[in-house]
């Protein structure tokens, strides 16, 4: 006789790994290596700041990409993609009208409740500005609900600056409202014209006019940056519970199955990529 199967499992979602199709509306080069993409989904993404999607091209592959825009009611999704490998290279060759696959949104993200009424400090390095923009946009949209917003954004050289005009617009908004401060830095000017400061993102921290007790920090950048920024912040008297970090790990599925993104016992794609630092500070692999 043939075996009868077990009862169907309610946990089965046949579409878990199937991307939804989105149409590219806009592709704009931001730097030599990064391009801005605006795509339109069949329905609103419904994401929180700091979440990511799994972006794919059928026949090429799939990769985790941060959502770069704040939560929005329309079907738009904005991303910035660095030509770093197989999929991202092919993506760079795409034009408006072509299709990409999207799964998600995935991950924890930032919770605006943690930031309301606070002096918000965003420290970003390089590509870190891309996900951070998804937090900065909603803050700017309702500035009166926050005490202030300080953005320290660093990159290696003026040629690598992302969202150049938009960041300057935030700066102007700061001059108008007095509530926003933007500090732009480069490691080196490389003889290019530069209207900001020169140095690492840690430099302005020690003299920043903030009230440690009233401050919440969001941090995103390359792996080397975290350790030094955290040291500075601790020196300023901030506790780990006031700091949110956005981490990167290798990810192949986005849904806590492929095992690549594990930081000690934590799954970066599930519990992260945004963590309140006190919850992972004890993990030896968190800031490696």
């Amino acid at each position: 006789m043939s075996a009868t199967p077990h009862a169907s499992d309610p946990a089965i979602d046949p579409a878990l790994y199937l991307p939804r199709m989105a149409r590219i509306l806009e592709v704009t080069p931001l730097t030599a290596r990064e391009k801005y993409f605006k795509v339109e989904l069949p329905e609103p993404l419904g994401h929180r700041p700091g979440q990511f999607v799994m972006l794919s091209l059928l026949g090429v592959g799939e990769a985790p990409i941060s959502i770069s825009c704040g939560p929005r009611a329309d079907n738009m999704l904005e991303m910035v993609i660095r030509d770093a490998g197989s999929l991202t290279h092919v993506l760079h060759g795409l034009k408006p009208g072509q299709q990409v696959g999207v799964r998600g949104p995935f991950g924890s993200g930032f919770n605006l409740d943690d930031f309301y009424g606070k002096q918000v400090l965003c420290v970003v390095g390089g590509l870190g500005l891309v996900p951070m923009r998804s937090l900065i946009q909603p803050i700017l949209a309702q500035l009166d609900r926050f005490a202030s917003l300080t953005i320290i954004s660093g990159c290696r050289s003026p040629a690598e600056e992302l969202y150049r005009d938009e960041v300057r617009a935030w700066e102007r908004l700061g001059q108008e409202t007095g509530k926003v401060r933007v500090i732009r830095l480069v490691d080196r000017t490389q003889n290019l014209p530069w209207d900001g400061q020169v140095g690492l993102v840690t430099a302005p921290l020690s003299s920043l006019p903030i009230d440690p007790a009233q401050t919440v920090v969001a941090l995103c950048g390359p792996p080397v940056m975290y350790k030094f920024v955290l040291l500075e912040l601790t020196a300023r008297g901030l506790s780990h519970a006031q700091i949110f970090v956005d981490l990167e790990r290798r990810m192949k599925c986005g849904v806590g199955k492929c095992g690549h993104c594990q930081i000690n016992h934590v799954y970066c794609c599930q519990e992260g990529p945004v963590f309140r630092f006190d919850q992972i500070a004890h993990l030896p692999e968190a800031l490696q």
Partner: protein
Amino acid sequence: MKPKVAFFDFASCEGCQLAVLNCEDILLDILGLVDIVEFREAMSETAPRFDVAFIEGSINREQDAERLRDIRARSTYLVAMGACACIGNVQARSNFIAPAENFQRVYGVEDRNMVQTDPEFWPLWAHTRVRAVKEIVPVDFELRGCPLVPEEFVHLVKALVTGATPRFSTQAVCVECKMNENECVYDQGETCMGQITRGGCKAICITNGYRCDGCRGILPHANLAAHHGLLQSKGLSEPQITNRYRLFCSAESLGRVGRTGHDK
């Protein structure tokens, strides 16, 4: 535009070109993706420039190195195809033997004396040293193995067509052995190069009852000290171990394992 593809062979058994011709069931589909403009083993045409040059064979003489440089200058991508082109293959064992000795062993004392006294012959044997393609010109991609793995060839062609980066295994042969559920060669009382050898071949030799001899070359992260110790602990003598390391991956193992210099 279909990429223009050309094949060139140097010192080799030409088995890799044959492995390409052996993809009978998909050969016509591949020809739908690329234009083959030069393939001496199979056709008479030649071409001045190409998008992709596939190089088979090791480079043993200066005249070959010259020809290779010329090919490099005429191609956008250059692919080293097979163990000879990637790592020198078995013939690189002769690098460990004095050139005159090599010559004498193959052609006899008389011929050796003849070529040694006639300057016209000198460049032909005195400088013979087996080199991998990357020792002479930059290589964009490598199709490793003796012979190459047809699936990898197809993968590379597809990647070249889509613009994606082709991905080749940088893991040990053990990985594919486990995927095939093979019994470990060591459990059969034999020794194996699989742990330090680049995978991608689907562990085909072990799957068919043999051991891995390392034809795909040594992994960048290979723990050679541990492997050497393991072979010792299995009773292999130092000459036996040297012989094993130099069976296929001689050029790549130069200076990395065993002794260097000329053996007697």
